[in-house]
């Protein structure tokens, strides 16, 4: 196992390096970080900024300089705000992490429940309903759902129940000048988590249903039933547990991808996360921020892919990682 882990990590390093170089080169070739300064009346500002950012050096030299500093913990400065990229990334990452954590927890609970129920009650009316809703959820654009959710759960419910203010909030993760993890935080989480979860639940529930159906038709399940094991025990102890194995690995891969940022969700609900940071940096050609974003995302994608493989091996003793 350890050898396997070590080998996978070793292979990942050149992949991440190559991706970071390609991103660096594409951004440098596509965006001019001094373009925003062309309306500045200081005639020397572009020359100074070019010198500061090393833009006259060949791309590999610029990349090498950036990589050397990055490896020493200096992630550089934002070309736009001159803010430390480490601070920016840490802040954005923490906001995105909160959305991801709650979104995954909620999605996992709902998706597994729906998937198990649908499999156990295959071809029932609820099964068909869940199937239809799942496809609808997968097809629904998050930006549309997010705005509809605000309209329904904030405004319509306010009207239906005669409330003085909407029961949920949808700007940021806290009310102004608030912090902490309290009722206010919960009110702000509901809608973005709902928006994030919709497509994930749609996808995972289908997967769980399929995995559950596979497991429930296995010989050992038939044997357990024949032995008189209670139905509930058959479903939850033997069925669900084994059906979770493939789902967990899918979840691990999907979670890794989420760290790239939830651009739409963060935009609609004004959460300053990795997605917003990425878009702002991309539009300005802020290469230091983009590289930091890439490294963080790549590390998490690789880590969670690795986790998926390891979990598979841990959960299924028949599998040995070599």
């Amino acid at each position, binding site marked *: 196992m350890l050898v396997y882990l070590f080998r996978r990590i070793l292979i990942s390093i050149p992949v991440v390096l190559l991706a970071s170089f390609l991103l660096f080169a594409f951004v440098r070739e596509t965006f001019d970080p001094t373009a925003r*300064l062309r*309306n500045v009346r200081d005639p020397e500002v572009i020359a100074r900024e070019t010198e500061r950012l090393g833009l006259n050096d060949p791309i590999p030299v610029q990349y090498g300089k950036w990589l050397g500093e990055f490896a020493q913990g200096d992630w550089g400065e934002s070309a736009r705000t001159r803010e430390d990229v480490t601070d920016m990334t840490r*802040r954005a990452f923490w906001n995105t992490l909160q959305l991801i954590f709650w979104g995954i927890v909620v999605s996992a609970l709902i998706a597994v429940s729906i998937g198990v129920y649908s499999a156990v009650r295959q071809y029932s009316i609820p099964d068909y309903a869940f199937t239809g809703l799942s496809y609808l959820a997968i097809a629904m654009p998050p930006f549309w759902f997010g*705005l509809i959710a605000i*309209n329904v759960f904030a405004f319509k419910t306010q009207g239906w129940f005669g409330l003085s203010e909407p029961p949920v909030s949808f700007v940021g993760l806290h009310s102004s000048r608030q912090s902490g993890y309290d009722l206010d935080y919960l009110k702000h989480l509901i809608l973005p988590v709902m928006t994030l979860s919709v497509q994930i639940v749609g996808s995972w529930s289908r997967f769980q249903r399929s995995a559950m159906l596979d497991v429930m038709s296995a010989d050992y399940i038939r044997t357990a039933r024949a032995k008189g094991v209670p139905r509930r025990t058959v479903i939850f102890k033997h069925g669900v547990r084994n059906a979770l194995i493939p789902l967990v690995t899918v979840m691990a891969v999907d979670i890794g991808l989420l760290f790239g940022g939830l651009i739409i969700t963060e935009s609609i609900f004004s959460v*300053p996360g990795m997605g917003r940071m990425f878009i702002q940096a991309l539009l300005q050609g802020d290469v230091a921020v983009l590289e930091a974003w890439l490294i963080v995302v790549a590390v998490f994608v690789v880590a969670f892919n690795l986790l998926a493989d390891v979990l598979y091996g841990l959960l299924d003793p028949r599998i040995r990682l070599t």
Partner: protein
Amino acid sequence: MRLKRRGTKLLALFLGLSLVAAACGSDDKNAGGTDGGDTTEPAADVPEGGDLVIGAEQEPDCVDWISSCAGSSWGSWMMGHTTMPRAFDAVNEDGTWVYEPTILLDGEPELVTDPQQVVTYAISEEAVWNDGEPITSSDFKYTWEQITTGEDIYDTTNYADIASIDDSDPKLAVVTFEKPVAGWKGLFGADYGVFPSHLLEGEDRNAAMANGYEFSGGPWVIDAWNKGVEVVLLPNENYWGDVPKLDSVTFRFVTDTAAEFQAYKGGEVEAIYPQPQIDVVEAVNAGIDGNSNFTADTGNIEALWLNNAKFPFDSVAVRQAFAYSLDRDGVVEALFGGLDIKKASQSLNPPIMSKYTDVDAFSGYTLDLDKVDVLMTGDGWTKNGDGFWEKDGQQADIAFITTAGNARRELTQQVVQEQAAEAGFNITIANQEAGTFFGETLPNGDYQLGLYAQVLTTLDPSLCNLFCSVNIPTEANGFAGQNWQRVNIPEVDPLLETVNSSLDEDERSAAGKAADAILAENVVSIPLDPLPNILLWSDNILGPVGDNPILGPFHNMHLWGLAR
């Protein structure tokens, strides 16, 4: 005229960078003060207390006001105008925007013009920073020195023409100019304000200010700037004018327009100041609770900018014909009819510059296809089989460029394209990312027809920047000139120079109007819409809420209150 960036979100305008003039609001006790700009209702007895939350569409990059990173309008509106002491305010007097000294000054500065221009600012004895230190002439001098000698300064215009500032008397700043500067009232108040020398002298000003600062010479103090989330202002208890009645003001960053409206509707924010995009106009038209103020009397002018040096607009006749091919009122109505703004602008000066403007300069250019035919055929053009004008084997093909992702401008392009096609001009749309458009295409002259807005940041027309031949970007000046239209009309240059330099207001006004007439006759570009400002605020907000085309709507928040 200085360019200004009002928004950088995907659908936002990108207008170039500049800073907005700001001022403190007036003090009822001080007769020399200003009234805080245009208001919809007079200051009433508003209650004390309450925390106001306002939606902000954009977060600034930095708040070192003289640096190139601080070009965001929202930054100025939120933090610049509320904390930096300014010399002059723009106020509306009987429908005309004029400069008035703020309570920073003890009345109108003394102006001497002979033998050279000298302006003496008498600083109010009561004017202090929030730490209790007096605001002095040394602060004026420090500000000037930083602008003219610092690195990465956005714009040194007019400051560079100051020869010296005598600060021997702490309450008298004697500013001597190297040459006449007509726009002197825009100094120390138009874009940058006055900086505290006692805190910043000897320090790295940019490092001290870029991410927020604790000093203030205005009614508010920056309490917190939570990046990506909000800016919080608290009252400056040492402010020598009207101390704010509110306990705090928070600007929450809501960068998505749809979300912004939802936030306003749901009461998460109590005021918004959205850009005049199509969806905004539709939302306002569909009905929204609270109060609204939309005005076309702004410092904005959106126009069709023609490259006078590039085919086919290198011909006056073609430019005139193009102007006659458009129903400009129809375009404006399509964009802003929902706000009852249906008339096109008739000058390349924004509406608030009416004093220096021939407000009817372009009024003769209405849709007239017969005139198009006469002008084009007179210039040697004929229509080809496709119905487009052609001369010497070259068809009148025009690439029309604006900032990509701006829905309002894209709609404008479609309407113009259709109208122009009917008149025989073949327009293709080729939009670009804002940075490329403003940073390279326009300065390098790689365009024929462009659509963007000029946004005024002072009450000085500064049309010479745009249309004097000396400001044509060339390799010699590193393409730094702002005359992107390559206008080269010898009789216009001295008139626009007079507007820039004459200290006689009547002479400036006459020269400006005369210049306008010549620019219109030559159709150097075609004015389109005044780009209205839209302000929405809830019924909970009391006091003189309104917009100011130079200062924005938040400059007098210290006079506001909350009903609950």
